[in-house]
């Protein structure tokens, strides 16, 4: 990339930040996040209170404390990824065709910064924003859980990193889809893809629970087609990797039982996936009449 293109890319990324800061709709995100965190804190409080009672009843056979903590953080991750995905889509759904239709894209494309740099700048800006968003939300949720229930995930940061990876992939897919579809259809398609990913997780879970290997394999395949789901599962899995015994088994059977360990090469796969998405988006954008 030439120096001019790199500079242009950062100008566009900063422009994306400013757009995010100035648009009134963006206020929705912090408000929703605050509401979610408040509710989550309340939930954590009551859940641990209830767990306190059961621990004694179960006679210490299961580490209920860890079970509750992991389940709560897992729930939070589910919600945070959802919020992050909506945020990512919101930042990118109009990147190409949506903005071309309103006439905002053309004034930028005719500047000497090259189309790939423009696309990269938009992706970079959106990816950084929603990546930071989900990571901060994850840390806050973990801190709430730790303060109220005195349970900390181990490893601490890996699940958050998995969320960041997942939401960055959603943003990349959304940029790609925006090359082909106008704003609203593009947003709908990406959110449907997101739902498809969740469904894959669910399929895998049912497959696990009923020992249906066809279903398990299908779920795994879909998770690779939309690897934000695989990353999310990996994150959940690492959440419980520090646990042992029955508690771990129970957590994995729980609402996030689909949590699979895809191995650390999943990160490499996701990197390759991102590069492929970027290449396809750049190629299609270069050929487009605006």
């Amino acid at each position, binding site marked *: 990339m030439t120096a*001019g293109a790199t500079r242009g890319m950062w100008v566009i990324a900063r422009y994306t930040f400013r757009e995010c800061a100035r648009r009134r709709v963006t206020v929705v995100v912090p408000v929703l996040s605050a509401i979610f965190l408040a509710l989550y804190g309340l939930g954590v409080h009551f859940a641990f209170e209830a767990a306190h009672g059961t621990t004694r009843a179960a006679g210490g056979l299961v580490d209920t404390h860890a079970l509750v903590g992991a389940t709560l953080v897992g729930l939070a991750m589910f919600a945070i990824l959802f919020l992050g995905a909506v945020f990512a889509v919101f930042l990118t759904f109009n990147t190409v065709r949506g903005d071309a239709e309103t006439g905002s894209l053309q004034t*930028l*494309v005719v500047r000497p910064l090259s189309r790939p740099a423009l696309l990269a700048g938009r992706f970079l800006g959106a990816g950084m924003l929603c990546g930071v968003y989900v990571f901060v939300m994850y840390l806050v949720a973990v801190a709430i859980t730790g303060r109220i229930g005195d349970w900390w995930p181990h490893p601490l940061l890996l699940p958050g990193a998995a969320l960041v990876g997942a939401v960055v992939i959603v943003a990349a897919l959304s940029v790609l889809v925006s090359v082909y579809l106008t704003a609203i259809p593009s947003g709908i398609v990406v959110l449907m893809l997101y739902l498809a990913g969740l469904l894959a997780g669910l399929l895998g879970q049912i497959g696990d629970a009923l020992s249906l290997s066809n279903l398990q394999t299908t779920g795994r395949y879909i998770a690779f087609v939309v690897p934000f789901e695989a990353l999310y599962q990996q994150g959940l899995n690492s959440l419980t990797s520090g646990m042992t015994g029955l508690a771990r088994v129970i957590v994995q059977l729980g609402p996030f039982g689909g949590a699979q360990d895809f191995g650390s090469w999943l990160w490499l796969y996701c990197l390759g996936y991102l590069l492929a998405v970027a290449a396809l988006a750049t190629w299609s954008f270069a050929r487009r009449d605006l």
Partner: protein
Amino acid sequence: MAPLLEVRDLAKRYRATDALRGVSLRVEGASLVGLLGPNGAGKSTLVKICCGLVHPTSGEVRVAGHAPGTPEACAAIGYLAELFRFPPWLSADEVLRLHQELAGSRGGAEERSALLELVGLGYAAGRRVGEMSKGMQQRLGIAQALIGSPPLLLLDEPTSALDPAGRRDVRDLLVELRARGTSVLLNSHLLSEVELVCDRVVIIDAGRVVAEGDPGRLARAGGVEIETASGIRHFPDAGRDDIPGLVARLVAEGERVYEVRQVRSTLEDVYLEVVTPQEGR
């Protein structure tokens, strides 16, 4: 030196429509070229190809010697699209600043305020685009196109949202830019606009150039009409210099002459003559 804009045999086919069918034109030196034609003639398509926004089906375009869409070509042009929208959450000054950064202009705050003054928006530097009228946005669009003093301006219907006074402002501005050495390709479906300022007019219709030349020459004299006692006599090939002779001859023939008129066909007449009526397509 390569001409600022050279278009050769350019054709563009959108799925089912032939927007351009072999257009050639050149813009060089400090000149104001008007691209005139009815709606759907292909004017916007031509300009978008020159900016690298649209890919031609065939033909060749060179902007300052470079292929359109390359950084070198983009750096040589200032473009105002027919339909454009600046982010409503940016102020006028911020829009210009963004474009300065993208264009690599080092003009700084000085250039921005000078441009806002030039287009008559000096009072609205801090105003957000979302709170501007369409006319103000169009003025801002013109200022944006002028950032970095590009040698070639491509303006697509730059006065469509302006009132008559605003249109005159733009015309004056174009004349001033030409005096500073800028070349302008001005798209318009408004005859008056083109007729008043352009050095050269290219009329396109249904994707083809149908007439070309300087407006005065295109609107050539249309002969002489002389009203006599026996009716109006036409002399289609006669010009102003022929009038005394014609009158003397008629009088000598015993005619009584009441009125002599020199007929000028306006650019409008030429335009209506060369452009096929919509129904006829």
